[in-house]
């Protein structure tokens, strides 16, 4: 008799434990955000992806496929706010020391190794990629999605909330539609699908291995961007992260490119 009653108890206990475990994985803030709506959720993801005043990361970018298969670049990127970015290349050897300061599409400053010139470049080329990768300027500048897109929740499953983002009128970005998948555990986007003007899916970005590196926040340490038309993929690996280092605005200047400080 005891055995007969013990079994259902054990089963129920196991089921409860499983349910409890699931409930613990999902970020508790999600429920409230869902009640507030898609925009609130999207804004939260923006915050979760950028929870710092400034960030310095070292990235290794690896090409997969095509004629530059296996090519690698290592560079340090200093970011402050939505618009300021400074990049210094560490490898390959030919690129070591090359610097870029980006203040906006029309205000990019470049200095090449052993050159006594700093050149201003304006890039409105949406189809030209960064260093032969699958990233273009638009891809890299889509940091705060809530500013440029209107979201709509299209799916809510056990692990992800899926939203379709429609480009706002007047926004100068290449993609009229982006579909994102928000990981419920972190309220962070781990997949983005980019659609072109003809409604065709052209690129997919996927993010993996969320970790706490430079601060008390998660960041995806492996990101891939795949160009479906070219059958080419770029893999970005975050090697190091530092945040809130009180980076001065003077970093984002020609002076920094010439003198390093």
């Amino acid at each position: 008799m005891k055995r007969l009653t013990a079994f259902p108890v054990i089963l129920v206990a196991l089921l409860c434990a499983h349910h409890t475990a699931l409930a613990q994985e999902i970020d508790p803030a999600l429920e409230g955000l869902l009640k507030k709506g898609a925009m609130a959720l999207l804004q939260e993801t923006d915050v979760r992806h950028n929870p710092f005043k400034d960030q310095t990361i070292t990235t290794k970018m690896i090409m997969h496929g095509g004629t530059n298969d296996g090519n690698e670049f290592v560079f340090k990127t200093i970011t402050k706010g939505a618009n300021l970015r400074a990049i210094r290349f560490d490898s390959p050897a030919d690129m070591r020391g090359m610097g870029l300061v980006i203040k906006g599409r029309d205000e990019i400053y470049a200095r090449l190794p052993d050159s006594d010139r700093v050149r201003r470049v304006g890039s409105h080329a949406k189809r030209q990629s960064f260093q032969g990768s699958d990233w273009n300027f638009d891809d890299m500048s889509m940091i705060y999605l809530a500013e440029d897109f209107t979201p709509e929740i299209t799916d809510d499953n056990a692990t992800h909330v899926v939203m379709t983002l429609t480009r706002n009128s007047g926004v100068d970005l290449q993609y009229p539609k982006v579909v994102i998948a928000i990981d419920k555990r972190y309220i962070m986007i781990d997949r983005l699908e980019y659609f072109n003007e003809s409604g065709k899916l052209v690129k997919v970005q996927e993010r993996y291995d969320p970790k706490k590196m430079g601060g008390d926040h998660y960041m995806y340490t492996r990101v891939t961007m795949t160009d479906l038309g070219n059958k080419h993929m770029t893999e970005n690996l975050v090697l190091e992260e530092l945040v809130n280092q009180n980076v001065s605005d003077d970093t984002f200047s020609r002076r920094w490119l010439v003198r390093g400080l």
Partner: protein
Amino acid sequence: MGAPKANGLLAQISLMLGSLATRFSLSVLVGALALTALLVPSALRLDQDDDVIKFLPREDPDVQRFETIGRRFHGLSIAIIGFEAQDGDIFTLRRLHLLRTLALELRAIPGVSATTCFTELPDITEQVSDSGEEMSAVVDLVPDLPPLDSAATPELLQMLDEVRRRSLALDHIVGSLVAADGQAALILAQIHPDAPIKATADAIRAKVQARVAAIDAQVDLHFGGAPFIGSFAAEQTRRDLAKLSPWVCLMVILIMALTSRSLGAVIIALSCVGIGIVWVMGGMTLLGRSMTLVSSSLPVLLVALGSAYSIHLLAAILAHLDQGLPRPEAVRAGLAHAGPPVLIASLTTMAGFLSFAVMDVEPMREFGLLMAAATGLITLATFLVVTAAAMRFPLRPVKGGRAPQWALAGMQAGAHWVARHPWPALALFLSLVVGGALFTTQVRTHTENRTLFAPDSEPIRADDFLEARFGGSLYVQIEVAGDLKSPLVLRQVERLAALAESFPEVVTAQSITDVITLVGGTMIGEKRIPPSRDTVAALSTLAYTDDSVRLLVDDDWQHTLVQIKVSGADMSLAASVGHGIGKAGAHLMEPRVAVRRHQLSPAARAAEEAEISEHLRWLLAPYGVEIAPAALAGLFATATMEADREALAAVLQLNLVDDPIIDMVEDFAPEQVLDAVATALGTDALDVDRLSQLLVPYVDPAEKEHPESLHSGMRFVFEALREVSDSQVRAARAQWVLDQLGQEPPQHLREAIDRATWPLSDPVAYVPRSVDPNLEVLEEHPITMSVSGYPIIYEGMNQSVRRNQVSSLAVSALLVFLALVAFTRRPLVALCTMLPAALTILLTFGIMGAIEIPMDVGTSMIAAIALGVGIDYAVHLYWNFAKNSHAPLGERLQVMLSGTGWGIVINALEVSLGLSILYFGTVVPMRNFGLLTAAAMLFSAIASLLFLPAFLHWISRLRPRTGSSS
């Protein structure tokens, strides 16, 4: 002259094979048919190998170099797809969509390593920002396009207009990717060296045609470049053969039926050939061989040539049947009569084909071996199958024989006249020899692809399109080897390109320096090769992200190609232009060194100025301007100028106040130092240290905590100030040169002249090592170059064709001679028997020279075939002549010609009329081959029937008559 002992051996072999077939006729037939049935599936599975590159002589150093270069640059096979707008405007939404879609889709085809299309390129312009800064503006030349079904709104039309305007303003695109009139565009698809070229070209064509149809772009398509030409040639050759082979067979059947007057004989003869063909093709599949472009003509050649043995044997059997002999006796008599000459004829034919073994083209060697083996197999089949079939199948005798009396009478009369009139006959013979020889000297190898195809064919239409819209499609490549990240090497490449463009036949010369210059202009603001290797190295990495750059430089940046487009379609001319550039530019490859400018000796300085002068003369040559070297001395006298003070002030304002590189004290103003800076600059007394002295009193004290960094900043500001002065000097120099032009120069020429003189203001100079052995050398780099490209290997191919022609003919002649000596036992007789074939060769080549048929891979086979196959007629005639050694001339002629003359006529008619059908093909080499081989067989038959009896008669009169030794 009796039939010698060796012929006894041949008769024994014939009879032995024949008796096997007569005694076991049913088994032989069943066995042969069973073997054939077994091999049919293999024959049908035979693979095609359409690789035209295999027809290049592999041992030729130019071909090897071409292949090495191809591998290094991911393939030099460029498929060119031309799009010609039917309504005259390529810049419509539909067509831009088409080009963009194809540029991406073609890249996904296996075997395509890269595509280039103007729709995927950036447009870089120089602008001035709102704050007055010079900047490079990078935009997509063709932006993201609205959907195909978008309405033609004013915004859309404006966008398209803008694309048209910007595209047609770009020198590096117009004439290369877009026609100057905006009516046509190109997509270039680079094919990987390991990819199957025809299959890849076919896949590209299919994709393009499908997309054009789907988008309804209303463009005329053109497929040019070596991959499409080769694919077209292969495809058309196979189509021609498939289309014409049945007609060849039909012609052969018709002639055999009319002349033999026996349907049974026709069926037996053709079945024998068919069996031989199946055995050969089936055997090829089992041995893992494929059918190449040349060997695909094997079946039709065997039908025409291989039926000769059956015809002769059957003619002999039928002749004895017609004389009233019972069938078995008629068959044995026919074997004894025709067997030995059929055997020796087969051997001489095999010898003719085996001579291909000395050719330096592998598919040709293989073809020769195949045809020799096929000839041997068909001969074996003849003795077995024809004999067995003749025993089994009804063959009705015809009273009075089958050869028309008028034909026999005609042949006899002709031969008799020649024999009785030696001097006129010899005069006629020698006239034909001399005439043939004279025109033979006019034979040329062909130099243009145009001579290969019909005027309205796809390759010719593509050629016309590319010539009219883009200046042609013939490229010569010059490969330069050296450290291509060194400015020292790159400057020489730039000079080489300028030299190339100074040749009047050259349309454009593109090199990696064009790319470096463009990227440098964007990233540094200097449209030239930077003086620093590190800077060049960074630019090279940035440039190499574009796939089209891989056509110009290899992965290690140790080899580069200068791509030189030559006008017209003449390969020989293009090759000679290539060699001419190589010769004229040889001195550019002398060892060079880098030296600090202030350490240049007078000799070194003079050498540098001489090189720059030479460079400038090359730049101006296409405009018809010639400047004497001495006249350029004035150019170099301008070394410094008083710098524009406003410009200097702007530099100081930007770098010390607005966006400071160095933090200055709060009340600093550029005017405080402007005078001193301008004076020092004007007297060439300003350097980093002097500038530091001038500025330090105004520098923020905090800066002094970082002296090294501060020095970097000072150097940056100094270089910016110096650039003001230098740019003025450069502009003055460039204007001096342009004033010689007498007309407004195009922008690219202005920039090229600027680039040529710019190094004079660099702190480091590059000069030839030889000018001064005492120079203090900073660095030194070896540079080498070699000329390559399709026109160069075409030359090699033409030389190979000539070489192969001579060597295969020589070997064929030797082998045939040896076979005939073994047959006749008399070298003089053997030589005499070859005379009609020799005349045939001279007459055939004489026709080629007279009507300007060029020599190519196909026609290079003709001499050996004419000799090896044409000699058959002489062999049969000799055999019948020698049997009757004691009879008077008239009787000998009668026996000789009635025994074999009609067989020769049948064979000559069916071979020549059959092969002449190939003249209706679309590929010119096949037409020429058919026509010339047909003519050769006719000449051979006529020459043999007319002259050989007389030659043999005259020789027999030189020797005392002996008893027969047969």
